[in-house]
């Protein structure tokens, strides 16, 4: 019976093979990120470049509401400085780079005396300001769909940072008969292929302070690394703790096994 079905299936394979032509998104291209693997760590200089890409390009449309400027100076963060860490009795709020980056932005607030809406320079405790005052405004300016918040983007998509890096480089002419409406773009890594976001990156669009050549690939990978840090800021702490825990557990298991052998030595089982 099973053989008959297999034969029938094989015969039908020849007839119905090319029936699956639906636009499938391309798998993201692999990137050798520094934070991969059990001992992987963030590359701080890359995170700094990535932050610059976010600040100068992405942040004009995308919010990052879960991030505060102080986070930039947290351990393993892009602007962490051991001089301003808990060991010195200080926090990232004292880090002058973090203070300066915060002060570069304008934060909407209320005047403490009059209650009137004002803007003021940011402080490290402030969250990243959002580009639009509310979701309706975000939708209205972007063809009806609000640009997603990027705080967790590297964990909220299959493929994570590699997907982000691929997507940012994946623009091109439409494949196999996809038609684009005005304001739409073709991106082979985006599910369905049709994306509202215009190609955000270009050669030399962001100038890197460390002299790194500003290619689209460089910008895409740097901002993807930055977004991975933003989504999982405790990753280094987690892996470090995991290493100690595993060493302890392996030794402890070994001791328990030795005890087990000793206790059961004279008992058949």
């Amino acid at each position, binding site marked *: 019976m099973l053989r008959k079905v297999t034969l029938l299936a094989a015969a039908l394979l020849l007839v119905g093979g090319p029936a699956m032509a639906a636009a499938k998104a391309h798998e993201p291209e692999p990137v050798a990120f520094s934070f991969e693997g059990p001992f992987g760590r963030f590359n701080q200089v890359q995170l700094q470049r990535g932050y610059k890409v976010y600040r100068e390009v992405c942040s004009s449309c995308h919010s990052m509401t879960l991030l505060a400027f102080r986070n930039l100076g947290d351990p393993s963060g892009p602007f962490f400085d051991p001089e301003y860490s808990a060991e010195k009795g200080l926090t990232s709020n004292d880090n002058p780079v973090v203070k300066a980056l915060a002060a570069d932005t304008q934060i909407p607030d209320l005047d403490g005396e009059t209650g009137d809406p004002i803007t003021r320079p940011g402080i490290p405790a402030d969250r990243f300001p959002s580009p639009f005052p509310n979701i309706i405004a975000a939708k209205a300016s972007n063809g009806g769909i609000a640009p997603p918040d990027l705080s967790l983007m590297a964990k909220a998509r299959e493929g994570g940072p590699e997907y982000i890096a691929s997507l940012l480089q994946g623009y091109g002419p439409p494949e196999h008969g996809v038609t684009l409406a005005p304001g739409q773009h073709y991106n082979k890594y985006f599910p369905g292929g049709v994306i509202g976001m215009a190609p955000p990156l270009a050669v030399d669009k962001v100038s890197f302070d460390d002299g790194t050549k500003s290619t689209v690939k460089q910008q895409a990978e740097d901002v993807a690394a930055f977004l991975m840090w933003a989504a999982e800021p405790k990753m280094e702490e*987690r892996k470090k703790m995991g290493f100690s825990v595993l060493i302890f557990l392996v030794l402890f298991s070994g001791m*328990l096994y030795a005890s087990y052998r000793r206790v059961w030595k004279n008992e058949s089982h």
Partner: protein
Amino acid sequence: MSGHSTYQPSNGFAKWLDARLPVGRLVWDSFVDYPTPRNLNYWWTFGGILSLCLGVQIVTGIVLAMHYTPSAAAAFTSVEHIMRDVNYGWLLRYMHANGASMFFIAVYIHMLRGLYYGSYKAPREVLWILGCVIYGLMMATAFMGYVLPWGQMSFHGAVVITNLLGAFPIVGDAITTLLWGGFAVDEPTLKRFFSLHYLLPFMIAGVVVLHVWALHVVGQNNPTGVDPKSKADTLPFTPYATVKDGFAMSVFLILFAVFLFYMPNALGHADNYIPADPLVTPSHIVPEWYFLPFYAILRAVPEKLIGVLAMFGSIVCIFALPWLDTSKVKSMRYRPQARLYFFIFLVVCVILGFCGAKLPDDQVIPGLTTFVLVDSDLNSFVWLSRVATLYYFAYFLVVMPLLGLLEKPLPTPETISSPVLGGEHKD
């Protein structure tokens, strides 16, 4: 086991307390002097591992509840607040989320062990049913816990599962309205799920006490399925079982730690890092991995009500197992045919799990289009799950009752210690 107690209060206070509230005696009789079959293998260590899992979930959960906000507007950000700003909050939350998966890994091994060695047979029926009750409570707790982060998968998973109950005639709508606290999954749903998610683990702990009590009345089953006949067949729980359980727990914790520290999101779903949006449905709604086989059974049936009944029926079968299995021999060690069907059952459960994770119309063999049978192509996961569902039910409702009457089991040993001391190999 119920028998005469060998507890000797060691000092004046212990003596005084023993005459008033004999907790020391209870602990001594239950966890020190308690006789355990000497031939228990590592599959018997999962009871201890499960109590560890329950403890981890309750302790981490209580601390998480101190920082979590059960409201539709703030739940998602409060979870991220735990991840980012609470000291070791990331550790607590990842322990709790991965701990749930570890709990289910352990409970499935524990249940399959019972299935293989016939631990549900007389006189252990009540013990088995109490275990099934724990499993049911665990599923309810895990389902409601997964809703609490209020991500996309939380929300839409809750919509799909609660809508299922609406399939029941007459009472269905009333039940869903009661569960929702309104007419859709919303703020009141989240609040009552949080409340119940906090309550149910303590109910589990209560049933665990009954489960252990029942266990200590009838005694443990063992790989031979032959009850201990003399003192030569047993060893005291402490130190023999405690040290073995302790070693197994520690090894299990290594597995837990690998997930917790190195792939904490591997068992979750990316969509749950997107805040819940009732207006945007994820392209592919899937439950957590431990529900996938039941989800596949649900979707295998085209008619909604029958699908729901099949899903619940698949769990009822487990409850009814003591009366479905007609074999007098407990352990499948001596039932070669039953063993074969058991391993097919195991594979079928894994296949059902795969089917539950796939879209029903996805092809099992990529690129192969066969012919449409009833409503779907034969080469689709929906048909694979139908075949698997059929075997699942046939295993409980046909194989179990008939095999016990028809098969010819191998001879079972007279006593536990006879094969053991006789030097037969152990498996």
